[in-house]
């Protein structure tokens, strides 16, 4: 059966797991909110805060991403389901896409919440003409993050002490997203009187990133999780 149907199957399965366990909803969302507060708290200086708010949104997203990805693959490895999936001949590209889709869905919800939090906590206000840029940024970045997360999540899933290997693998890779998304968001929010036009170049980076890891992942996922 074709890769695409597998992807739909796996995505549906992952979302159903979340639906039955409510883990992301009840625990990761509050966690993300907390991270925001903690940052603001550690930085503890309003002018600094508004200045770096966009960066913090993405930092918090990144940490939550870690948690969600960990969870997504803990589900697979807990009882050796990943083996079963491979044997089931479920095309690994399909698994990759499927898990990425489910991940992106959960991330999107999360980011919306974080942005809202940022606007309240850090007094960042959204300028009308930045909206388009903002939305584009979030879509591009989310896709990219979902792909990277799935790719390295799968890689770490096989390894020993995976709960700690994942961050190590992932953070350096997502750094570009962090920068790109931050700059683009700054432009959209007009932080330090940046204008939306400054933002679009970064979108290019984000999109490139998403495409590279999307294609790369679909092709390479198999060889990664195949021990």
């Amino acid at each position, binding site marked *: 059966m074709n890769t695409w149907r597998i992807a739909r199957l796996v995505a549906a399965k992952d979302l159903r*797991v979340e639906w039955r366990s409510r883990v992301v909803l009840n625990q990761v969302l509050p966690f993300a909110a907390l991270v925001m507060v903690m940052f603001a708290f550690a930085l503890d200086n309003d002018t600094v805060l508004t200045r770096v708010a966009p960066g913090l949104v993405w930092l918090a997203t990144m940490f939550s991403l870690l948690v969600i990805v960990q969870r997504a693959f803990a589900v697979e490895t807990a*009882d*050796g389901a990943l*083996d079963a999936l*491979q044997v*089931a*001949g479920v095309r690994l590209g399909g698994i990759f896409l499927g898990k990425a889709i489910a991940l992106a869905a959960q991330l999107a919800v999360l980011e919306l919440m974080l942005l809202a939090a940022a606007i309240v906590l850090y007094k960042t206000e959204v300028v009308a003409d930045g909206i388009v840029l903002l939305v584009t940024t979030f879509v591009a970045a989310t896709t990219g993050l979902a792909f990277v997360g799935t790719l390295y999540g799968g890689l770490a899933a096989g390894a020993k002490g995976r709960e700690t290997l994942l961050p190590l693998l992932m953070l350096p890779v997502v750094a570009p997203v962090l920068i790109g998304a931050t700059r683009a968001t700054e432009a959209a929010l007009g932080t330090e009187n940046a204008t939306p036009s400054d933002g679009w170049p970064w979108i290019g980076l984000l999109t490139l990133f998403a495409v590279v890891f999307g294609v790369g992942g679909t092709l390479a996922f198999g060889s990664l999780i195949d021990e």
Partner: protein
Amino acid sequence: MDSVVQRVVQPVVQPVVALVDVVAVLGSFPALAGASLSVNRGEILLLRGPNGAGKTSLLRLCAGLLPVERGTATVLGCDLVADRTSVRNRVGLLGHSNGLYADLTVADNVRFWGATVGASQHEIDASLTRMGLANRLADVQVAKLSAGQRRRTALACLVARRAELWLLDEPHAGLDATGRDDLDVTLRSAAAAGATVIVASHELERAGALATRVVEVVGGQVRQVAE
């Protein structure tokens, strides 16, 4: 009832499994050290042998999970040396662990694994009935099940996959009397319908009665057993 195994199998000339002097390593340890085995279609083969002899490794190799280090291995006409993934969608493996999603219900699990081969709802129900799970248990989360009930669920998932080659690692362990009978009936009818079954087990009386042929695995090699 046979609907669950009705996938048409075109007659194969060569044996379903043909291993010659296969060496396979786990880490640095040769779990299989020159194993040779040939299994014909419709056979129910019992692998016996001491702990750590290499039974699980042998099954995983046939499922394309373990790479062939040396020797030649052909399963269902696919050359595992060339591409061990090619065989996957046609074999079904039940390992020591069940490969279930603990957050999902029994029915959810069977439905998912069935869907990977496009099984119909009717076939799903048939699989559940086969392992005596078409009752209150069908809608209980796997996490809440007892050990034996989980094993039954894993078997139901396997049945729903309608594989051409069934690989089972100690399928009887943990099952109660009726569960064992259900299992034997299932395997026999699968074999009768043209599937091939390989069972690794330490319950020699039980599994011996089921099997059409017995071989012994010792020190990573396969040894014929005189009837």
